[in-house]
């Protein structure tokens, strides 16, 4: 049995097959009455959370910074795509892909600027800058009448399960590729020791900009998908609580691990739904889980480890494995 799992773990075909099967399942769900609308909604949320978690992991896990502004990028993506689908290109053929890409691009552009501003800050100071960024985005959106102000916007429902699944795969694939390239190594070197990274000729600025912008891009993509699945977005959907949820997912699943990001997002989303009956007590249970996690497994379930499936072939023997 164990041998079976080990060979499965090393198999290079397992992941592509799973992706194809997963996509087929999503398409089937869309056209056949396999699961009800509620379950479908939960599954889409799982997908969106995986994207959020993996993209935040790039900055908070791989680069070891502490950004608390990911909900801000999500808001940018959500509003950008809502503006696109409601005001600019209503009901056109391209609105689905364009709105998502546009949401990601707007978030990435702002992420780029934020990276420029926060070069010299680390740790607590970066956390404060990203917190300020989150508050700026939220209050800006609240006060711009064009974006509906506090009342929010009602973009059309466009996201379905296969589309969410597609973006999950794209996100994980691109972040995986980035992480196992020289840029990923540079990002990791910054986490390990910024002074040593400099001495090794790592282009620290470039690496930080890239990590921030890429992370923001997929944060925006997740926001755009979120806007199109929820039928309604308002500034309150993107407050510090949302950021905290993403942080919990990252640290639950494991820092610097894509498998961890998936695990964290899945566990969190399902638990969140399962605890729905507890009402407000849910807000007690979730932080409690986080506290216990920090005590017993501070790097998360898969912290710093990766499933061999996600490693490029040439890297298989160069990394720590679970």
């Amino acid at each position, binding site marked *: 049995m164990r041998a079976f799992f080990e060979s499965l773990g090393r198999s290079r075909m397992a992941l592509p097959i799973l992706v194809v099967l997963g996509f087929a399942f999503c398409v089937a769900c869309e056209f056949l009455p396999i699961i009800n609308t509620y379950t479908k909604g939960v599954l889409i949320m799982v997908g969106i959370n995986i994207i959020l978690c993996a993209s935040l992991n790039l900055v908070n896990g791989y680069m070891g910074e502490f950004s608390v502004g990911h909900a801000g990028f999500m808001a940018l993506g959500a509003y950008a795509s809502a503006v696109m689908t409601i005001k600019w290109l209503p009901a056109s053929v391209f609105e689905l892909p364009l709105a998502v890409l546009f949401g990601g691009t707007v978030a990435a552009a702002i992420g780029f600027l934020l990276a420029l501003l926060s070069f010299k800050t680390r740790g607590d100071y970066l956390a404060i800058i990203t917190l300020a960024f989150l508050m700026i985005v939220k209050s800006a959106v609240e006060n711009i009448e064009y974006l509906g102000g506090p009342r929010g916007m009602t973009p059309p429902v466009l996201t379905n399960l296969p589309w969410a699944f597609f973006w999950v795969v794209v996100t994980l694939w*691109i972040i995986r*590729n*980035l992480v196992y*390239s*020289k*840029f*990923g*190594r*540079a990002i*990791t*070197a910054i986490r*390990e*020791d910024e*002074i*040593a*990274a*400099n*001495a*090794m*000729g*790592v*282009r*620290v*600025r470039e690496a930080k900009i*890239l990590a921030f912008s*890429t992370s923001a891009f997929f944060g925006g993509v997740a926001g755009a998908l979120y806007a199109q699945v929820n039928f309604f977005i308002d500034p309150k959907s993107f407050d510090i609580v949302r950021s905290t949820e993403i942080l919990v997912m990252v640290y639950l699943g494991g820092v610097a691990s894509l498998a961890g990001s998936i695990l964290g997002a899945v566990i969190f989303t399902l638990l969140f739904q399962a605890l729905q009956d507890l009402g407000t007590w849910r807000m007690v249970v979730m932080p409690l889980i986080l506290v216990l996690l920090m005590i017993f497994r501070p790097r998360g379930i898969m912290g*710093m480890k990766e499933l061999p499936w996600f490693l*490029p072939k*040439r890297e298989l*023997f*160069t*990394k*720590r494995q679970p």
Partner: protein
Amino acid sequence: MSALLEIDNVTKRFGGLCAISKCNVRVMEGHAHGIIGPNGAGKTTLFNLITGIYKPTEGDIRFRGESIAGLRPGRIALKGIGRTFQNIRLCKNLTVLDNVRIAFDSQLHYSPLEAMLRLPRLGRDERRSIDESMKLLEPFGLTPHAHAVAGDMSYGLQRKLEIARALALKPRLLLLDEPAAGLNTGETAALTEFLRWVKSEFQVTLVLIEHHMHLVMNLCDRITVLDFGQTIAEGTPAEIRENPRVIDAYLGGTEVEQG
């Protein structure tokens, strides 16, 4: 033979404290150049000035005739100055191989987009980086540890890895901050031979801060002595050994007249 590195009248003040004051050092291409001096003389500060961690308050630093004072540390490293640290600074959670690859990466030229989309150049470059990094580990005796996590290795191996990593940059100048710290006499003798080999094999100029006089006197072509941030002597090992000011600085005599 020309000067590879010129430290020209450099002063570094931290608030009221003058860590380096009007310091002059000329390092010749192909030399091993020792920097010695009592604790707190400003030796490591000098390294931090050369590598751009600090900016000089006054004066200029030239590398291959070009001023590098005030450049960012990453830029200076890429110009061909590698270094090791007094208290080892490795990427402790990464494997030995990845530590070297990070330094080797400056020679890979693919763009972020090529990386994200895994275009063909990425695979070629990455394989080259793995092969060449593995090759670099060999003379350091690190090949069997290539996939070990750097932080789990013994102190001696970590020191070696730090030198290997600095050489992966293909530097012209290698700054070593107390490479023999924590080594016993036998190991220090072996290190002397090893550094001599590194110097000829990689055609690199060495500047080393060291307290082990045996190593410095044996290896170095020239020596600069610092005390209280000032150059108090510069010369061949034989000259330094005879210099009264050096003896004074080290032994703390008060009879010798100052200046």
